[in-house]
């Protein structure tokens, strides 16, 4: 058995699970849990002839994802009730947006926090309205608080005191310190209204955001799930106007790389002209698949490399040195 590739194969082509045996199933289910893709796997394999035990575990995973979906919808609704009086657009992001909009990417997806995007000039009003409606600060640390407010693309996380659920309020999709500056006003301008008053990003922007989240921010932790999101979005929306939109946001290279890797790992349909060899792809692929049969993170050197890269992308060197120094002293 060989860890993460088992999961990638099963998601790409469910027929590959035939004959993997008890050891193979054990590894597959463990890796799927570790990558937060067990609910997705449950949907992909639904209807196949499976060993009883596997069928039971995946049925639980689907039920669990369904409950998660219901809670995400409710959390979005509660945020809307708190924010609707402000009269400013509230755009749902990531998992919550996928399930609210009924997209394939939301099928079985695990959803953590409720992520929303609001206009930067209204962020103070949004913060006040959420605090008045029962959300509270998670991190009362002054340095972290200042760091978020000055440099990040979101408010410090808030948690609701009764429902114990987090909300991340974004005003753009990459940290302010990053070298790439997406057009946040255009994201909101083009967003699509839903029946309940909330909004989701336009299809191209949704893909751009997912790619930005995967490559331009963070160390690729949970990367397989993010790449699966991108696979589903590309299949559902196509790529006709994607290049121009991604270029507008300065994120074409991230989108292109995401599309190449989704095509490579999940067989996503992409234009032939996009399928070129890139010297960076094998390393990213290596990082995405760094998970063994026991669900343990593997390839520590590759992981460390991407961890350092994530900070490098996020801030200029002098600022990075200062940040790491302050964090290290604690």
């Amino acid at each position, binding site marked *: 058995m060989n860890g993460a590739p088992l999961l990638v194969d099963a998601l790409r082509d469910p027929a590959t699970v035939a004959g993997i045996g008890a050891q193979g199933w054990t590894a597959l289910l463990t890796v799927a*849990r570790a990558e937060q893709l067990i609910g997705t796997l449950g949907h992909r394999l639904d209807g196949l002839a499976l060993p009883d035990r596997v069928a039971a*575990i995946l049925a639980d995973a689907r039920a669990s994802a369904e409950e998660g979906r219901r809670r995400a919808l409710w959390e979005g609704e509660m945020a809307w009730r708190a924010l609707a009086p402000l009269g400013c657009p509230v755009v749902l992001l990531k998992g919550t947006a996928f399930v609210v909009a009924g997209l394939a990417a939301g099928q079985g997806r695990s959803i953590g926090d409720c992520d929303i995007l609001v206009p930067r000039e209204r962020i103070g009003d949004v913060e006040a309205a959420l605090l008045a409606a029962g959300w509270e600060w998670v991190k009362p640390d002054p340095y972290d608080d200042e760091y978020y407010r000055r440099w990040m693309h979101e408010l410090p996380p808030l948690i609701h005191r009764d429902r114990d659920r987090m909300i991340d309020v974004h005003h753009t999709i990459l940290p302010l310190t990053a070298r790439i500056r997406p057009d946040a006003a255009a994201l909101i301008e083009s967003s699509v209204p839903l029946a309940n008053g909330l909004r989701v990003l336009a299809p191209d922007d949704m893909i751009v955001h997912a790619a930005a989240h995967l490559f331009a921010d963070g160390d690729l932790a949970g990367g397989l799930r993010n790449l699966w999101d991108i696979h589903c979005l590309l299949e559902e929306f196509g790529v006709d106007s994607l290049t121009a939109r991604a270029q507008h946001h300065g994120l074409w290279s991230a989108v292109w790389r995401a599309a190449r890797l989704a095509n490579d790992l999940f067989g996503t349909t992409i234009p032939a002209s996009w399928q070129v060899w890139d010297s960076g792809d094998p390393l990213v692929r290596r990082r995405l698949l760094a998970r063994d049969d026991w669900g343990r993170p593997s390839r520590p050197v590759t992981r460390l490399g991407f961890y350092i890269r994530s900070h490098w992308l996020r801030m200029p060197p002098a600022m990075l040195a200062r940040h790491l120094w302050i964090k290290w002293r604690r």
Partner: protein
Amino acid sequence: MRHRFDVRVGPVGFRIGADWRAPIAQLADLYRDYAKPADGIPDFTVRLTATRPWRRWIRPSVAITGDYTLPEAAPLPLAQGLLAAEMAMNLQMALGWRRHLLLHASVVENNGRALVMTGESGAGKSTLAALLAAQGWRFMGDEFALLDPDTGALHPFPRITSLKNQSVAAMAAIKPDARWGPLLAGTPKGDIRHLVPDASAISAMDVAAVPALLLFPRFGFAAAERSVPASEALVRLTQASTNYTALGEKGFVALTRLIASVPAVAIDYPDGDTALALIQRLMR
């Protein structure tokens, strides 16, 4: 991982991997009469790994991880590896199990009728379960009661019992010929020893029972007995459940049905004999 042991407890299959041989050998010995996971496919993976690569050898330190992990779960020294395994198995159940509503409770059964006992640590639910087992009741578990949301039945989870401090000697007196694990001295929970349940409990670990009584015992007070209203029982059991919220409506339906179908009683007791007499009368 280098060392591995698989076991099934009631409906739940576990795969436990460790960097060291000792905890796996202890588990294999204590769980030797238990079945293996159905189809050879466990529900959960538990990992006992070194907190840092060198901590496998130098002052070995066991991180409690697996499919589900709590960042705040503190590591334990290798001498307490068995406790680490037990805590990691409980953690998988508490955070990951969805097939049943889980209640932190002990369960014993007599003539197909199950008694569920729940309360704070020290209320005596483990000790009372062992006392009743010594009287011929079937021990169904003293960590989690597994309530089936579809049928309302209780499923056994007769895991190895972990006993703390004075309860070790108390239990040794009740069950002189029981099989025990090694004494784990000075753990974060005090001195701990693991007790293997009766053979009858292990061999009947797939046999469900119908709930008959909900008991909220409290040790160390003069004998008293009070009927618990449904509203109070509901609140207390939601607090005693690790997956009530995660199950959503299914959890609410299962719990309200349980409370509507059986009497709920709180008892105070100064000693085991008093409690046994109260319970015998209540279960009649």
